[in-house]
C-alpha cells in the first residue's frame, strides 16, 4: 500500500470526489457546500469540478434538505446531503425517522432510499449548548437507519465510500474537532464495511470501547495505562448501527473488564446500549462492573474551561480503568 498523510476532512473529500467520478448519480446538497467550499472544507473544489447540477447549495432549511434527499434517493439518485450541525437533525427527524427509515419496509421492498446524510458534532469547539451535541443514540430507536461514526482519516474515507454504496439510508456523523487531524490513508481504492468494529490496539487487562473522538482519547489512555503495566485493548465501534457486538464480546471474554467512552450524554447513550448488550451475552466473563465515560446530564457549557471539564478525556478513562483493575 502506498500511504500518505491526509486530514480527516481531506480524506472525506477524496471519498466524495471518487464516488462522484465513479457514479454520475452521486450528487451533493447542503448549506454552504458549494460557493463557500463547505464550512469544514470537506466539499472544497467540488463545485468547480462537478458543476452546480451536482453540487447544490441549499436554503437554510434542514427539513427541505433531508426531504429532497429522500425524494432524490427514491427516484434513483445517490444524494449525499450535509447538515451543518448534528444539533439540527431534529428538524430533519420526520424525513429521517418516519420516511427514509420506513419506506423500504412498508413498501415490501419496492422502494429504497439509498441516501447519505452527512453531519458533524462540535463538542470541544466552544460552540455552545445548541451547536455541540452528540446524540447518535437517538437513532438507535430508528431501525432502518445505519449510523456511522468515523474516528480516523483512514476510516472516514473507507466508511463514507461504503455509506454511498449502501442501499439503505445512512446517517454519517463526523467529528468537528477531528477535521484537521491527520492520519495515513492509502492511495489505492479501499472501502470499510459498515458493521465491523476495529481493534485499534491489542491488550489483555481491560477493553476500552470508544466512539468517534473518544477512540483517540482511549488510545491515549491506553498509552498512559501501559506505564502502569495495565494492558488495554482499544476497540473503535466505527458504526453504531449495526453494532459489531461480536468483536466487543470476544475482547471482553479475554479481558473481563469493559469501559466505554463516548461524547454523548451518559444516560441512555452509546455506553448504556453496549453495556446492556455485553451483559446479556457475556455476564459470566465480567470481573468488574462495566463503566461508562461520557458527558454529564446537563446542556453543554459554553465556557471553554467548563466545556473541557465536561468532556470525556484520556485521564477520565484512565481513572475509570484504575478503579476496576486496582487491587
Amino acid at each position, binding site marked *: 500500500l502506498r500511504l500518505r498523510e491526509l486530514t480527516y476532512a481531506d480524506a472525506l473529500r477524496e471519498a466524495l470526489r471518487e464516488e462522484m467520478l465513479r457514479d454520475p448519480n452521486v450528487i451533493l446538497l447542503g448549506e454552504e457546500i458549494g460557493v463557500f467550499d463547505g464550512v469544514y472544507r470537506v466539499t472544497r473544489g467540488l463545485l468547480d469540478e462537478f458543476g452546480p447540477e451536482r453540487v447544490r447549495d441549499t436554503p437554510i432549511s434542514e427539513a427541505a434538505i433531508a426531504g429532497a434527499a429522500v425524494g432524490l434517493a427514491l427516484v434513483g439518485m445517490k444524494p449525499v446531503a450535509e447538515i451543518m450541525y448534528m444539533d439540527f437533525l431534529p428538524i430533519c427527524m420526520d424525513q429521517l425517522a418516519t420516511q427514509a427509515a420506513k419506506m423500504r419496509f412498508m413498501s415490501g421492498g419496492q422502494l429504497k432510499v439509498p441516501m447519505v446524510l452527512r453531519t458533524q458534532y462540535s463538542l470541544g469547539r466552544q460552540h455552545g449548548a445548541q451547536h455541540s451535541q452528540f446524540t447518535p443514540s437517538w437513532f438507535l430507536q430508528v431501525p432502518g437507519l445505519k449510523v456511522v461514526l468515523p474516528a480516523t482519516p483512514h476510516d472516514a474515507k473507507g466508511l463514507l465510500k461504503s455509506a454511498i454504496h449502501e442501499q439503505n439510508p445512512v446517517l454519517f456523523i463526523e467529528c468537528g474537532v477531528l477535521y484537521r487531524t491527520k492520519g495515513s490513508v492509502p492511495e489505492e481504492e479501499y472501502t470499510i464495511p459498515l458493521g465491523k468494529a476495529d481493534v485499534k490496539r491489542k491488550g489483555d487487562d481491560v477493553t476500552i470501547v470508544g466512539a468517534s473522538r473518544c477512540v483517540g482519547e482511549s488510545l491515549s489512555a491506553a498509552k498512559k495505562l501501559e506505564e502502569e*503495566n*495495565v494492558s488495554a485493548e482499544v476497540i473503535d465501534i466505527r458504526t453504531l448501527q449495526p453494532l459489531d457486538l461480536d468483536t466487543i464480546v470476544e475482547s471482553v471474554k479475554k479481558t473481563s473488564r469493559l469501559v466505554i467512552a463516548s461524547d454523548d450524554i451518559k444516560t441512555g447513550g452509546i455506553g448504556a446500549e453496549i453495556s446492556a448488550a455485553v451483559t446479556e451475552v457475556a*455476564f*459470566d*466473563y*465480567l470481573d*468488574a462492573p462495566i463503566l461508562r465515560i461520557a458527558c454529564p446530564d446537563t446542556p453543554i457549557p459554553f465556557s471553554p474551561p467548563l466545556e473541557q471539564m465536561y468532556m470525556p478525556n484520556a485521564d477520565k478513562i484512565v481513572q475509570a480503568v484504575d478503579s476496576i483493575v*486496582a487491587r
Partner: protein
Amino acid sequence: MTEVVMPRLDPGMQTGKIVQWLKKEGELVQRGEPILVVEGEKTTFEVEAPDTGVLTKILAEIGADVPVTQPVAVIGEGGVRSHAATTVETVGKAKPTITERPARSTTPRERVVASPAARRLALEHGINIRVLSGTGPGGRITQEDVLAAVRQVPASKQGSSKARQPNVLRKTKLEGVRKAVAERLGFTARTAVPVILTMEADATKLVTLKNKESGISFTAFAVKAVAKALEKHSAINSTIEGDEITTYSDINIAVAINTEQGLVAPVIQHANRKSPKEINADLETLTEKAKQNRLTVEDLTGGTFTISNLGAHDIETFAPVINPPQCAILGLGRIAYKPFVLGEGVSARPATMMTLVFDHRVVDGVPAARFLQEVKRNLEDAESLL
C-alpha cells in the same frame, strides 16, 4: 437457583414427555448444554440448561408427562445441594401433572461480593466461593482470587497486573498427557482427604532373591507384594465416585511410568494371580508401549490400586497423589543399606521406605496401617511371593 421448565415446542403443545435425562443430579451443567430429551406431540428434542450450575434436583422422572412451563429440574449454585429443592415432590408416572414450585429458603445466606467471572471460574474449578477473600475494589472476589485459590497459593501473593513478571523462557499449552495428569491429580487434590503413612521394610531377602531371579525388577516384586496384601485387605481395593464406594474382587495394579509425554499408569490386570515373573513381563511390555505412545484404553483402565516407584532416582520417601477414583497409592523409595538396630548392636541392611497415601473418606487409619504391615511382611518374606 434457576428452574428448568418444560418448553412449548409448538403453539398447540400442552404437555411434554420426559424421554431421557442426559445429566444426573449433582452434575455440573453449562448454560446451553443439552440436559434432557423431551417428546412433544410432533417431535422429540433436547432441552438446554438455561443457566450454568449444578443440577441440584430432577423433578420429573423419565416417562412423566409434564405441562408446558412447569419446572422439571432445578439448577443451583456451586456444589451445595439446595435445601429448598430437596423438599420438592418428585413427579413420577403415577402423578403426571403435579409440581410444586420450590419454596424459597427462609434464612437468606450472606451475600458474597464476587464478580460474575469469579463465580463462573469457581464453579468450573469446584471451589467454594464463600471461603475466598476478595482483593478487588471493595473486597470483591475477582477471577484472579479464584485462580489463586486454584493454584493453592495465598491470594495476597497473586500477581496483579502491576506485579513484576519474570522473563519467560517458554510457555507450554497444557494438553495431551500433561493435561490428563493435571486434571486427574488436580481433581484428587481438591476432593480426597489424604493421609500419609510411612513404614520401613527390610529388603535383605528381596535383594538376595532379585540377584537369584535376575531380570525381575523390584517393582514387579512390589506389585506382587501389594496384590497379595490387597487379597486380605479388600477395603483398600476400592474406588470412590461421588458418594459411592466400590470395592473390587479383581486386583488390578496400576504402575506409574514416566514417558517423554508425561506420566502414565498402565494396569497389571489380576496381579494377585500372576507370578513376579509374569508381572515383570507385563511391565516390560507396558513400559515399551508407553514409550512408543501406543498404550490402549484397555491398558490404562480398570486399575484398583497404584504403585509409584521412584527408587531408581535416589528418592528416599515421597507422598504420591492418589490416582482417582482409587482410594490409595503406594510410593516406594530406593533400596539402600541402612543402619539396622537390633538390641544394642547396629548393622547395615538393605531397606526401603514405603509410603501409603490413602483417602480417609474411604478407609480409616488402622486398617490402612494393617494393610501396609501386610505389604511389609510380604516384601520381607520375599520367597513367599514366588
